[in-house]
């Protein structure tokens, strides 16, 4: 992993701002504020991993219950990530939001989640072991 410098922080915050811009535009352009749910989904997506990695001892290989708790956290993280993509599609299919708003909120949500993931990859490296 390359050293996370000032340029990384600037680029990450820029991408985060673009993501929020896309999501807020997708709401405000059409005066329908359902796509804001996407932001909340992506913010709670890493939380199961954090909680379950606190609960489990990953060095414990004899009793595999620790690995089971870790797997539960991963399962729910995968669930929430797909939820962020599936929610605008469901809303657009039911004619609650427009298709343009769906595309903008999906792209914006992916940018926000990518920022969260790469931020934790760059700056929480020492917790891996």
């Amino acid at each position, binding site marked *: 992993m390359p050293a996370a410098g000032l340029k990384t922080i600037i680029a990450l915050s820029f991408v985060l701002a673009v993501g929020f811009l896309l999501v807020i535009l997708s709401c405000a352009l059409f005066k329908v504020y359902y796509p804001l749910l996407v932001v909340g989904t992506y913010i709670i997506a890493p939380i199961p991993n954090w909680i379950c990695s606190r609960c489990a001892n990953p060095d414990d*290989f*004899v009793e*595999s219950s620790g*690995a089971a708790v870790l*797997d539960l956290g*991963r*399962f*729910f*993280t*995968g*669930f*929430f*990530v*797909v*939820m962020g993509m*599936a*929610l605008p*599609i*469901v*809303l657009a*299919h*039911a*004619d*609650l939001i427009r298709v343009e708003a769906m595309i903008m909120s999906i792209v914006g949500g992916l940018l926000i989640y990518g920022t969260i993931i790469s931020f934790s990859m760059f700056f929480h490296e020492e917790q891996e072991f």
Partner: protein
Amino acid sequence: MEEDRLWKFSKPEWLNSVWARNTGVYSAGALFAVAFYVMLDSAVWSGSSRNASDVHVKFVDWLPLIFSSLGMLIINSVEKQRLSADSFSYSGSGVAWKARVVLFLGFAALAGGMAGGVTVFVLKFVVPGVQMPALSMGIENVVSNALVGLSSVVLWVSQNMEDEYSYNLSL
């Protein structure tokens, strides 16, 4: 290890890595989310203004998904190592037998959910002759139950990968 192998083709090496196991668990969660949101999509579409027909998604349509999810929860909660532990000294009295009964109940719930999805599709949508935009609610029901089954298969396989991995590490 290599001598008591049954199949001609051995498992590739990369399948035993931590990376493959984590990817399997993540994608199981993703598949389950797709299943849930396909079903939710049919319910939301049923209540929306696009649904011109008289057919609506009721609690009956959700029952197959509930049973499939229950079966998936039961199957993946059982400790897989207890299945092969048949001797008394290794696992106590009859743990393998209990594990088989519980697993049977779980697979029965999963298969019952799938069969229920097909039943709802046939009895509610095909037999009354519902036309295409409303027929998609029934198709989504079948698809979501199949996806729950697929998700539990992926989770099962990746948990077995994890056992192999920890076994290799403890040697």
